[in-house]
């Protein structure tokens, strides 16, 4: 990894961003250094690797075409994730429409046994599978804050910027999501940590 890569990852100096224009060199650097992050980000939101590639590419295009608008008020990565999230939301909306149609079609068919997705079979153990399943069952708003917080390790302030929420809302969504997850995991396994914690009373 070159020094240039490292300097980009350490986030672009706001003063330097005044010079940011979609020059070929800038595009090279942004795509090379940020595309993998953006693709992973999109994958975590969309849960579909192919669609994530499409969304990530759209996000890079949208970002580069708006590069001159980036003023360094947030970090570059936060700004880029914000764009990616919006694009992913568009994809999710379309996906929901497709899913509605698909559900209507499968309603006429026999309910098949649950086939684990490749990702589910990648889970290292039953406990991990349960946790993933519990996260999936959260509604979109709560699921997103959990993913931004725990997969991408973003602080509440940056999650708020990306999702255009205030920090209090993000915190309360995280709080609610954690309570929901703890409850779901408790119901699935009677010997969870929560009960152990209760037993210490």
């Amino acid at each position, binding site marked *: 990894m070159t020094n240039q890569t490292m*300097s980009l990852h350490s986030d672009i100096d706001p*003063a*330097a961003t005044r010079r940011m224009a979609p*020059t070929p060199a800038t595009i090279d650097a942004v795509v090379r250094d940020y595309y993998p992050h953006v693709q992973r980000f999109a994958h975590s939101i969309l849960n579909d690797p192919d669609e994530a590639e499409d969304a*990530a590419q759209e996000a890079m295009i949208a970002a580069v075409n708006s590069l001159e608008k980036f003023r360094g008020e947030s970090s570059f990565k936060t700004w880029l994730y914000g764009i990616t999230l*919006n694009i992913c939301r568009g994809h999710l909306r379309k996906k929901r429409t497709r899913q509605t149609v698909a559900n209507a079609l499968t309603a006429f068919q026999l309910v098949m046994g649950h086939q684990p997705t490749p990702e589910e079979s990648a889970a290292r153990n039953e406990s991990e599978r349960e946790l993933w399943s519990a996260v999936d069952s959260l509604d979109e708003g709560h699921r997103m804050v959990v993913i931004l917080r725990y997969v991408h390790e973003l602080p509440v302030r940056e999650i708020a910027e990306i999702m255009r929420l205030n920090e209090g809302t993000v915190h309360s969504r995280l709080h609610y999501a954690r309570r929901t997850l703890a409850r779901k995991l408790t119901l699935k396994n009677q010997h969870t940590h929560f009960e152990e*914690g209760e037993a210490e009373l």
Partner: protein
Amino acid sequence: MMSLTHTRAREWMEAEVDGLLSAGDRQVLETHLEGCTECRSYMAELQRLEVRLNTSLKHRWPFPQVERGRLVDVNRAVKDSTRGGQMFWRLTYAARPVFELGAVITIMAIMAWVIGSVATGTTLTAENIPGLLPATLTPTPTLTADSSAQVTTCAGVAGAAGAQVRDWPATPNPVIAVIEAGQTVPVIGLYWTEGPVTSDVWVLVSVQEMTGWASNQEIAVAGDCSAVAVYTPATLPQNAMTPPPTPAPTNDTATQVQVSPVPQATGTAAASVGCSVTGLVDTPIYSGPHRSYTVIDTFPTGVTSAAIGWFYGAGYDTFIQINWKGAPGWVPANLDGLAYVGMDGSCSELPFIAVSPLPPTNAPTPTYQPTPDPTATATGVTSLAVCTGTTTFDAMQVLAKPSYASAVLVTLRIGDRVTVLEIYNGGEANVWYRVDTGSVTGWITAIYSLNFDRPCGNIGPTPIPPISVPLDFTFNAPLDIGHSTSFTRALPGDNGDRAHVIAVKLDGIPQGNSDPTYYRTIQLLVECSGNGSTDLRWGYYGNSPLTLACGESINVNMGMGWDSQYYVLQIPPDTGLSVSYEVTITVGAYTGP
């Protein structure tokens, strides 16, 4: 001390794991936890859940190993999305720092003065070279032809992000030193990477007792730079460790930086890593990773060969190194937006081969004595030093006069080599090069028509000044999501005007709009009637021409940054087609509900 209720304490524990609790409140919470078993259990449960979420979820979405081919595709798509606006940025962004370099202008003025004197017999100054100087720039009237004898005090100041110094003036090359923000270093030379359609400028600096190249995007040049060397690819110093001609600053604490020598293009590359390339078309094999290297053989369609390395220059082109008949050769993976070879296997493992992006030239640079062309007016013509390049269009017509309506002297194929003799500037959509094809001398459009072998003298990075464009259409398109508007136009009949610039300007969209989630799409639909080839060529302002069949449409995401878009439609010369096109512009948004 139990100054908190259990409910309040839980809220604070939640805030603590989210990093939102103040130091004072944390102290109160810790005191509370010491005396509250139930709350300690709750905290322990919270922390266990934190650990589970932090570890398990990351495993679910591991960091992707993105194939290099995919990165190239994305890079291409992103650049394509902006290419239409590149003329805009060249004239606004790229030109700005260059023009700010008064020293660069000084050198250009010297060259203009010298060449202008030769060409016209009169004294040219920087101010009267069309498009060379913005009005705000201080002219340099004191220049004389022998000013190169002055002692240089030229210096570079690293920008706020510091400046990276490389052993070769190209982004992929190794960084050999970093200049701290604000630090000043002596400047020894300047270099334009390519021809007039690019604007990358590199500054050769002396740092830590060696020399290296910094991009002018990272370093500002100040002082009297009239005596610094202006390099061409032929005169570039091959060894970055050459002692600088000016005394290096003495810095006892400076650490010795190791410099990697640049391997030669013909060097032996590493063994194969399981990546292969297959010819999608009959592909030229070059001796180096640039089209100006010698073509050594042809890589036939359908043939597969192991890839042993790759090179991606500061421009657009990606080359793959293969072992061909016992010797290394380079095939283009992407050249001018066209794919030549397909890639398969673990190509992300391919080693990057740092080579000179351009071949060394040992031949002395000839000087060209331009002769005035009677077809062009004196004010619109700028003479060039010797300047060569290859064509980017197929079926490019060399015309007798700088006009699409002029007689066709000869038709060139893509990649044909020409020498540019003069530039005629008749406005942004009407700029022409007078070229020598080897058999005839005539005019070709200057709009993205050539890949230049080397910098072309005083035309510098902006050969085309921002002259008002004769627009075909101006849309007053408000920023309403879903807003769509379109127009249709028939191209002129078969009167020799076989290429057409479509200039579109969008007004009414606030350029200050900072919401990056809006986009504008331009759809171009071409309809034809009559007999003949149905494949038209089109490109963003003539660049990277692609095939567009009659009846086909293309969509271009215009983004929100640009207010003008230019396209060139080129109709094959052997056709009697009547062509019309329809342009539809739509405003959309990526935003969610």
